[in-house]
């Protein structure tokens, strides 16, 4: 890499001198070839003028093939002069006696010049073909390198290095619009990196080709017409086609990196989601294991025959038992809350009878509804629903809890279930102070608290989450309320598909 750069530097500073020297040498060699032919045929071997002319032509073809156009042209003119001077009578002068010989001489000159030109063009084409092949090889090397980029470094940085390597560029700057970073590569530094930086961003935004000085080309990298970055190159001795291919390769490389990045991020998100759910399971287990022992003991004591505990002992054990129930509900709700608030929660659906969901919820809220008149009204022949029982029970329990909290002690609470075209509708109604109309909309917002409920303690399970749960089931939740008459919360649950009902 560094050696090739050194040769570049040499060619730029001492190149002209060297080139002139090499041309002079080649000219001298070419002319000496012409001189030798002249000497051989003039002094040693005597042939007719036509044969000598052919020999000159062969020599000029050799010169054109080995050397360049300049040597061949000079040799052609010199050979014509020699041909005239030494082989056309009167010999030893530049005059030509026979007019036919003028024709021959001009034909010779024309042939020599044309041959030189053709030969040179051929050579040029070969050189072009070689250059193209080299470009192709470099592009191929670059495409391989882009495919094999690793994740240890930013892909754009690796691509910049690979371009500098493959195309022997002294300095490269690559701007990746996705990461908004500029990556530098190559053995030399840009003289004015700030200007380059600005122009790179400009080029990537405007999708236009810019120049900085004579040697730096700044060109946008597009994918499907959209600029996704830009590239600054010094001494860009690339053909347009090669540059375009290079830009396409870089575009593909950057896009690949972006997609890979997105996939990685999604994977990390999924893993953290899994970790969270494992953690929640562990927490649930840790909290509920000691609660299990306590609950077993309190309920066992309370289920013993009346006389085994004194009135006072029974009262105390009941307090402990209710405390366990409350803790258990808090832990369950906190875990459910964390599960739902993560945003992506999966419904654990099953087929359940509405009556069983209601009776479980009533059982769970027994400690808060104690002493309240709770009425349950179920329509006959309710079809089973297809729901996440745990979440729905939690929701019904929450609505019952709210009804108790936001209504006068001893006022009745009505829980009912009926069927409609929306599915099975469950209602929880209280005879509390009711909810004003503008509050009716806001109560489903996150963190909203009813004006009358400022002093009440909550379990953290807001109506906003209730709405999330119902939405996830494809149902609806709404409230009907009139001041001083009470509120009725209702929600719909999807009926289980017929085929799944066993």
């Amino acid at each position: 890499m560094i050696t090739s750069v050194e040769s570049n530097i040499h060619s730029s500073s001492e190149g002209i001198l060297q080139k002139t020297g090499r041309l002079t040498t080649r000219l001298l060699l070419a002319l000496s070839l012409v001189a030798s032919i002249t000497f051989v045929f003039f002094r040693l071997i005597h042939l007719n003028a036509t044969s000598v002319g052919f020999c000159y032509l062969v020599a000029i073809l050799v010169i054109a093939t080995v050397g360049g156009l300049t040597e061949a042209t000079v040799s052609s003119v010199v050979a014509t002069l020699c041909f005239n001077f030494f082989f056309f009578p009167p010999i030893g002068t530049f005059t030509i006696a026979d007019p036919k010989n003028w024709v021959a001489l001009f034909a010779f000159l024309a042939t020599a010049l044309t041959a030189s030109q053709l030969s040179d063009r051929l050579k040029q084409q070969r050189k072009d073909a070689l250059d193209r092949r080299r470009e192709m090889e470099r592009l191929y090397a670059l495409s391989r390198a882009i495919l094999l980029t690793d994740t240890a470094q930013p892909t754009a940085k690796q691509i910049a290095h690979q371009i500098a390597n493959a195309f022997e560029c002294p300095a490269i700057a690559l701007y990746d619009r996705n990461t908004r970073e500029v990556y530098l590569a190559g053995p030399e530094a840009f003289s004015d990196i700030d200007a380059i930086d600005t122009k790179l961003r400009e080029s990537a935004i405007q999708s236009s080709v810019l120049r900085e000085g004579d040697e730096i080309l700044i060109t946008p990298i597009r994918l499907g017409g959209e600029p996704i970055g830009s590239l600054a190159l010094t001494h860009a001795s690339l053909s347009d086609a090669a540059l375009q291919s290079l830009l396409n390769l870089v575009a593909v490389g950057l896009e690949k990196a972006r997609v890979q990045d997105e996939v990685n991020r999604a994977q990390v998100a999924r893993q953290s989601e899994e970790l969270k759910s494992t953690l929640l399971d562990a927490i649930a287990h840790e909290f509920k294991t000691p609660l299990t022992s306590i609950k077993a003991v309190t309920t066992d004591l309370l289920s013993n025959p009346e006389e085994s505990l004194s009135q006072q002992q029974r009262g105390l054990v009941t307090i402990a038992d209710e405390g366990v129930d409350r803790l258990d509900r808090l832990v369950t709700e906190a875990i459910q809350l964390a599960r739902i608030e993560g945003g992506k929660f999966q419904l654990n659906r099953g087929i359940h009878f509405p009556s069983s969901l209601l009776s479980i919820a009533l059982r769970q809220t027994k400690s808060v509804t104690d002493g309240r008149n709770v009425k349950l009204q179920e329509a006959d022949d309710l079809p089973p629903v297809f729901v996440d029982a745990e979440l729905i029970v939690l929701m019904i329990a929450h609505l019952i809890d709210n009804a108790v909290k936001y209504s006068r002690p001893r006022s009745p609470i009505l829980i009912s279930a009926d069927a409609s075209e929306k599915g099975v509708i469950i209602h929880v109604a209280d005879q509390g102070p009711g909810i004003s109309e503008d509050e009716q909309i806001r109560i489903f917002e996150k963190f909203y608290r009813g004006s009358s409920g400022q002093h009440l303690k909550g379990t953290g399970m807001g109506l906003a989450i209730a709405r999330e749960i119902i939405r996830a089931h494809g149902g609806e939740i709404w409230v009907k309320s009139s001041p001083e008459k009470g509120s009725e919360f209702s929600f719909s649950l999807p009926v289980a598909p017929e085929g799944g009902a066993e």
Partner: protein
Amino acid sequence: MSGGRILVVDDDPQIRRTMKATLTARHYEVSDSRNGEEALDRLRSEPYDLVLLDMNMPGTGGIETCQLIRSRSDVAIIMLTVNNTERDKVEALDAGADDYVTKPFSMPELLARIRATLRRLPQGPDEAALQQLTLEGVEIDLPSRQVTVRGRTSRLTAKEFDLLSYFLIRSNKTIAHRELLQAVWGPDYGDELEYLRVFVNRLRKKIEPDPSKPRFLVTDAWAGYRFHLPH
């Protein structure tokens, strides 16, 4: 007089102690194991009527232990777990458990479940007639609780046996979910559709030549199940 022999399997020592104390007071004979391996060893050497099995245990977990017990014994199993999701219930029942109780539970509830699990259908006069039954290549031997389908013999667990007997006595009649649950599990049951689904599937695997296309134990959508007895 002992109400039955119960093995409590839980990694938490406090739960084992509590269970031992409360269940012994209710006249059960209780032993305990700290993990699945120990439980399997104990079951090999001593007879038990029922296993109370914790679902979340380190090492051989509850589900795996349940499958291992079921593969060699038809002892009654009640799974205990902190999770209350449909998936967990079905997983436990599929592994061969007879019932499922969520932690924390009240003692009266657990005792009711134990009684229901150990409860046997009273032998009616009709059952005496159903000693042996051969249906289109399926042999059902009720006294030994063995079923042979295409030369492959499997044993029914007590609950599977009760369920099948209940069906056989009322063959060709649709039996409602609630009736089945209350008859076989007890009067406290009735809403546990997942129990029926899993147990019916378990029975189908044992008695149907092709469990995915049941010929005998058929579903009557919405209404219940029916045992189709060819005449």
